[in-house]
């Protein structure tokens, strides 16, 4: 690695931070990649324990934090990116920042945007590649899921034999990526108590990847994830190598899991609520096993990891507890609905919908979310964001009367209204899209109740 490109790029980062632009989490990498296009593979090669890359439409940020926590418990020194900087440039920036750090980092851990993944994997040559799920996301940004699945299939096929793909057995599209390949590690949830009654409306990918016959589900856990089989060609979910055999949901505050692995069981209580976090914990455990981390370190790591910003994060504002549950696509939103419903109290809700680039300009997905059970129990409902009025129509046509919702497009005013509506000592559930979450967090940071995300470890 030549010094000048690194020096210039790092200076750009310091300048960007001083100017307060997004914490400088991707600009230095952009500069570096301009000056030295092969920088990623050069910097990645220097890490003796190799690189782990994580991607998914849902849960990659939380899972990356869980894996990082496990690796730290095992005594590893890591270089990792922060969420929001999960494109090529964000990974490059993280590697750049770690240059000259003492002790030198031993391993890289990166969560990568699903559209950027193919290029990052090609350059970084990960030793472990964790692929968690493909849910219908922002159609206007990615094109359709089929296209992404085809790109990922080629990417996995081109991984060197020494690399370990870690794949979700419960997702038919992800599971198919490992077809015909040796050395795949699979994970899934075996606890049948988590089952849904039926496939949710937002489920996709319910045709067989091999013969296009509609899939049969013996158990649906989340979205289109579950115990699937094809009556057309006999393809079926494999019994996973790493499997959660017990998942206990502790209301809207946390979970307990028991996960069987080839190296022994992992038991942990996590301060992260909802079944989706049981998937994240199981995926993280599988990745950590593939990295060579022992079950006892994994158990400590899972228990020690705080919520990623905006993903089950809790803050206190004016005597009310705020629970931030990012909901950026139908499956994610359905899981936040399920999580809020675990609270025995009728929930106070603030739902925020933006349509900026990182959210996806197309907001039609809110009509695929099953808000109805939440509306039936809501103690109060405040709607905000660029597309607050679209949310209001969604709720109106779900049968929620106009007088039982408040529409305030300005997020800060809406936050104040929602907080004032919840009783002192009560809980306000905040369900924002990505940029709406960033905006609300900025307010919370300014008011001194939350940490800026780039200062987080």
């Amino acid at each position, binding site marked *: 690695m030549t010094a000048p490109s690194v020096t210039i790029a790092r200076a750009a980062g310091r300048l960007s931070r001083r100017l307060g632009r997004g914490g400088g989490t991707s600009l230095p990498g952009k500069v570096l990649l301009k000056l030295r296009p092969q920088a990623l593979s050069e910097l990645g090669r220097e890490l003796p324990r190799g690189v782990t890359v994580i991607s998914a439409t849902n849960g990659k940020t939380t899972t990356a934090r869980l894996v990082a926590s496990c690796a730290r418990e095992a005594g590893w020194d890591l270089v990792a990116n922060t969420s929001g900087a999960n494109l090529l440039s964000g990974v490059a920036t993280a590697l750049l920042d770690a240059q000259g750090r003492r002790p030198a980092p031993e391993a890289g851990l990166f969560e990568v945007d699903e559209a950027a993944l193919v290029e990052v994997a090609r350059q970084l040559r990960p030793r472990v590649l964790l692929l968690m799920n493909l849910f219908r996301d922002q159609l206007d940004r990615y094109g359709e899921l089929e296209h992404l699945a085809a790109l990922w299939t080629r990417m996995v096929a081109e991984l060197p034999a020494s690399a370990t793909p870690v794949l979700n057995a419960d997702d038919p599209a992800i599971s198919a990526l490992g077809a015909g390949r040796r050395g795949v590690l699979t994970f899934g949830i075996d606890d049948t108590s988590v089952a849904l009654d039926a496939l949710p409306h937002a489920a996709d990918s319910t045709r067989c990847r091999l013969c296009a016959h509609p899939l049969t589900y013996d158990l649906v856990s989340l979205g289109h994830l579950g115990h699937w089989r094809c009556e057309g060609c006999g393809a079926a979910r494999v019994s996973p190598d790493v499997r959660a055999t017990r998942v206990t949901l502790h209301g809207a505050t946390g979970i307990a899991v028991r996960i069987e692995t080839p190296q022994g069981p992992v038991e942990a209580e996590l301060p992260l609520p909802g079944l989706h976090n049981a998937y994240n914990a199981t995926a993280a455990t599988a990745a950590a096993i593939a990295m060579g981390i022992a079950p006892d370190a994994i158990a400590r790591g899972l228990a020690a990891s705080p919520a990623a910003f905006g993903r089950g994060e809790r803050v206190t504002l004016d005597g009310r507890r705020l629970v931030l549950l990012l909901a950026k696509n139908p499956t994610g939103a359905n899981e936040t609905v399920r999580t809020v419903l675990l609270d025995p109290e009728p929930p106070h809700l603030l739902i925020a919908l933006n349509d900026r680039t990182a959210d996806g300009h197309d907001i039609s997905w809110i009509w695929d979310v099953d808000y109805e059970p939440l509306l039936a129990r809501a103690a109060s409902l405040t709607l905000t964001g660029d597309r607050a009025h679209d949310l209001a*129509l969604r709720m109106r046509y779900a049968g929620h009367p106009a007088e039982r919702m408040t529409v305030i497009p300005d997020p800060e005013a809406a936050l104040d209204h929602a907080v004032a509506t919840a009783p002192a000592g009560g809980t306000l559930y905040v369900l924002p899209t990505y940029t709406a979450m960033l905006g609300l967090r900025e307010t919370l940071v300014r008011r001194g109740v939350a940490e800026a995300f780039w200062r987080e470890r």
Partner: protein
Amino acid sequence: MSAAAVTLRLGHLYPGEMNIYADRGNIAVLERRLAWRGLGLEVTGIGIGDPIVAGAHDLFYLGGGQDRDQAVVAEDLARTKAGALREAVAGGAAGLCVCGGFQLAGHGYTGTDGSRMPGVGILDLDTVAGPTRLIGNLVIEAELDGERRSVVGFENHAGRTRLGPGSRPLGRVVQGHGNNGEDGLEGGVTGRVIGTYLHGPLLPKNPWIADTLIGWALEHRTGAPVALAPLDDTMEEEAHAAAVARATRRRGR
């Protein structure tokens, strides 16, 4: 038959395959707006291999799907439903065909590789795949039953659609791409069938189109024009205005 006792019969074509643009929102709007007026909606899913029973539906809905599903649907439409569907709409049944459904309502779709997917021909239009996707907020000035209104939604399509003389456009593009990004037209209408690239979904922010379809379908059901009781559409109007404002400012903030 008096309108007070009427239940409209909606034939929802391929609800399992053609549903990716929040099509259930359109159906929820039809259902609520009928219910608020004391009318009913009976939704029957018509899937792969299912026949269309003559005279059984007042209104058809066909949404958009992923490419792979859409190819399966095109083949099934041609094989099991095209004739019955053409007869139904010739007999005055109404239809709403959105995105992929709009393309399949025409004569067919020619892919980038030259492959041809047949349509049912209830609208006089043809679609050819373009080199890029036309994506974004879309505002049009629409005309139905002699009345003109602003209609807003979102478009996302690779197909370039051109109308034949047997269909007139749903409207003229104010902001966005429309049928092909070139001729300034959006959608296609023949008789009581509306095809459009507008989703978002279409009907919540454009209740006027919902009520037009309901009126047409009621007329098919009862055999006479039906006056619909007005509803309080304040929230719909607010959302429409906000979406138009959003569409006409710069994107990508």
